[in-house]
């Protein structure tokens, strides 16, 4: 059989134009005319960690209201305008960011960018939509009250970060959401949405000059400086604790974790490799093999590095029938202890490096994914050159580094464990 020839590796960074707009915005652009679309991803640093203690969910609510009426349009008219142009525009909020996601057909470029400008600058934040979005958030929280997955992750988070913004509910509480006022939202918008905490990336059929002019229209009138609360570093607590929440279901959902490795730690990439070996998203990971393939204990089992701006964790999860939950957890703990003590084998390391290097390309296969990745790198403070350096950093992880990172990441192997269900024998 004759296979296709490989395409020589090209510089991914060389495809990225670093633009500074006339208005002073820094933007990364990949110009590509293969499909008549333009995607823009942007994010304001801040997010749910900026919620006042008595108002969890404020940033999430703000994000949910930006496309609920703006400028001359009330909520219904704004959505009709988006439909008439077939534009995709929505906002999302996580612990550290309020992000915007935009995609348009090139033939509607001007009016589509105008809708984005209105949402960013002139969202009406009217009482009707506020009440509606609050009721939607409350309904979704009610649906999760006794959902095993949601219960386990809520319990885990509260135990991991007591008294810290990361321990609170990013989407708010059923009791407090209705108390949030329009003034609270206006105030949050003024503090959060500014030019100096903004990262923007664009991909698609648009040239740099046109994009720059459009983005200056969208973001140029925002305040120059955000006014953010200082979020203190959060050291994870509760390690060694095991918290069981009783729910009448046949399966126990298990969430586990321990402190992770910071992104700027010299061993961070080695920790990424070690996590891949432990519980990364491939059929070759140790947890997949030991928990699922060999013993049939679970359908889903994984671990990943959770790096917030002010905290780093290793977290993982699985779900096993109640009678075998203790066994599942014991297998997970055994794998973590073994990897901490002995580190990976040379073969495991080589395979993990190969996977991580080869799979990087698949993160860049749609314009929205490319834009999202470019935005993320900016938020992490990386240069465009990182796009080419990243695989070299993976390749440089040798056995010493991997063993060191395994010790750092997995240490004494102790875990914070939150279970939801009716596990027996624990």
């Amino acid at each position, binding site marked *: *059989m*004759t*296979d*296709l*020839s*490989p*395409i020589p590796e090209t510089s991914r960074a060389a495809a990225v134009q670093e633009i500074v707009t006339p208005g002073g915005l820094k933007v990364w652009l990949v110009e*590509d005319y*293969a*499909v008549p*679309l333009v*995607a823009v991803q942007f994010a304001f640093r801040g997010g749910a960690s900026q919620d006042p203690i008595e108002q969890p969910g404020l940033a999430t609510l703000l994000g949910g209201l930006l496309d609920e009426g703006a400028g001359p349009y009330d*909520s*219904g008219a704004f*959505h009709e305008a988006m*439909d*008439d*142009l077939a534009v995709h525009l929505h906002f999302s909020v996580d612990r550290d960011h309020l992000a915007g996601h935009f995609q348009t*057909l090139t033939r509607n470029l001007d009016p589509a960018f105008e809708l984005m400008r209105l949402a960013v600058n002139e969202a009406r934040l009217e009482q009707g939509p506020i009440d*509606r979005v609050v*009721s*939607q958030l*409350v*309904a979704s929280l*009610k*649906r999760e009250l*006794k*959902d*095993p997955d949601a219960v386990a992750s809520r319990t885990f988070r509260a135990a991991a970060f007591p008294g810290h913004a990361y321990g609170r509910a990013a989407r708010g509480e059923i009791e407090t959401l209705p108390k949030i006022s329009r003034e609270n939202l206006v105030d949050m918008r003024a503090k959060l949405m500014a030019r100096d905490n903004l990262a923007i990336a664009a991909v698609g059929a648009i040239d740099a000059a046109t994009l720059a002019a459009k983005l200056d229209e969208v973001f140029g009138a925002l305040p120059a400086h955000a006014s953010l609360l200082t979020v203190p570093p959060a050291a994870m607590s509760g390690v060694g604790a095991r918290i069981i929440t009783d*729910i*009448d279901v*046949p*399966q126990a*959902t298990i969430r586990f974790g321990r402190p992770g490795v910071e992104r700027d730690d010299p061993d961070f990439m080695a920790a990424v490799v070690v996590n891949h070996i432990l519980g990364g998203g491939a*059929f*070759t990971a140790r947890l997949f093999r030991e928990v699922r*393939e*060999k*013993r*049939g*204990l*679970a*359908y*889903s089992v*994984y671990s990943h590095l959770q790096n917030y701006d002010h905290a780093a964790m290793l977290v993982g999860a699985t*779900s*096993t*029938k109640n009678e075998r939950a203790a066994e599942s957890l014991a297998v997970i703990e055994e794998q973590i202890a073994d990897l901490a003590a002995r580190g990976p084998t040379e073969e495991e390391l080589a*395979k993990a490096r*190969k*996977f991580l*290097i*080869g*799979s990087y*390309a*698949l993160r860049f*296969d*749609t*314009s*929205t994914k490319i834009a999202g990745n470019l935005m993320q790198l900016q938020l992490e403070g990386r240069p465009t050159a990182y796009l080419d350096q990243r695989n070299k950093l993976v390749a440089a992880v040798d056995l010493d580094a991997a063993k060191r990172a395994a010790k750092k990441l997995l240490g004494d192997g102790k875990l914070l464990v939150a279970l939801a269900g009716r596990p027996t024998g624990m």
Partner: protein
Amino acid sequence: MNLPQAAASPQPAASGAHAGPHIAHSRLDNGMEVVVIPDHRAPVVTHMVWYRNGSADDPPLKSGIAHFLEHLMFKGTKNHPQGEFSSLVSDLGGQENAFTGHDYTSYFQRVPREHLGTMMEYEADRMTNLVLSDEVVAPERDVVLEERRMRTDSDPSAELSEAVQAALFAHHPYGTPIIGWGHEIETLGREDALAYYERFYTPENAILVVAGDVQPADVEKLARETYGRIPARGAPPVRRRPQEPPARARRHVSLADEKVEQPTYERVYVVPSARTAEPGEAEALEVMSHLLGAGQSSRLYKQLVIDKPVAVAAGAYYMSSSLDATRLWVYGVPAEDVSLDDFDVAIDGVIADFIANPPGDKEFERAKTRLVADAVYAQDSQVALARWYGAALAIGETIEDVSGWTARIEAVTPEAVVAAARKWLDKRRAVTGYLLPEATA
């Protein structure tokens, strides 16, 4: 399927299309179809094989066998023992997975383009050389039972949906969950899996779909050198499914559970699919369901969530891609203090109003704009395109059916939309499901 993200659930409506790349379509001598979707933006390929059999083809007493076999297809062959294929995909930095629907089963890998031929060799190998031992079958059956506990048995809303589907189809196997019923999964063994494999995993029953940085001639050559070596088995397997009798009774199911804090509502109608509809009817249903329930400009959202408001969410959805008669969902989350009975009446009101006051030109054009644009947006994802063509061919549609979809949507008239609503949104064709807190049972 193997990784948790891919569900043993019906695929989204395979009703997309686009005026984008030129699709090549051919057939190997042994009957296997070959579809190539060029996309030269990145040096990667998506390689999929679709089999024209899904859970609705499970033999009696063997519900879940299509899905269970899909899991077992990762257990190795005569030539490549368990783990070798996955290990190779991992070394290439590739992605792999599989999924089972009511009408098809599909396997895929995404890898750098130069490894396409190798993927084809391995996939062709496991079309005929699967090896199963009781030692690997038993723990994998436990995995599937855990998958069922995770997706359904621990989630009252999933249990309700299962009950609604079971009530909706009195006779047709779409009423049986794709993953199977727990008590039957427990009895599935090696022999069942191999018998099913022998029957359905043949070149005549398979469709190869390759999307990515490739030329059709190169893919066809590689296909001949791999899949083309598998001997033809004769006629493709015949799907014989019990068909639904006429629906005459409105049905209602409710599920009350102590874990439910937020009531929810669904109503599901049996309606024609892209395969069973009269010409233009599936497209009219597509536009109708969009007008009725897609997004915040839809009738259901406007009238029930914004104007009244009796709900915090409401919408509708039509799954056109189906071999036999399919389903149209209307769903909602009632506002606090609104009973599900009152919400049910409100839904009826919206539908009656839709027929009495059909959409005007602007509303009608808006729906078409969104639907047609979705086909352009789809060109941004080679995986989405590969899935659309694969699913369409697997239910017996043609390449032309898919590529002509946009034009057929453009041709839908307001009269056809109203006629579709009048004819098919008949409560005698529907099951209504209530999810309730236990105290209200």
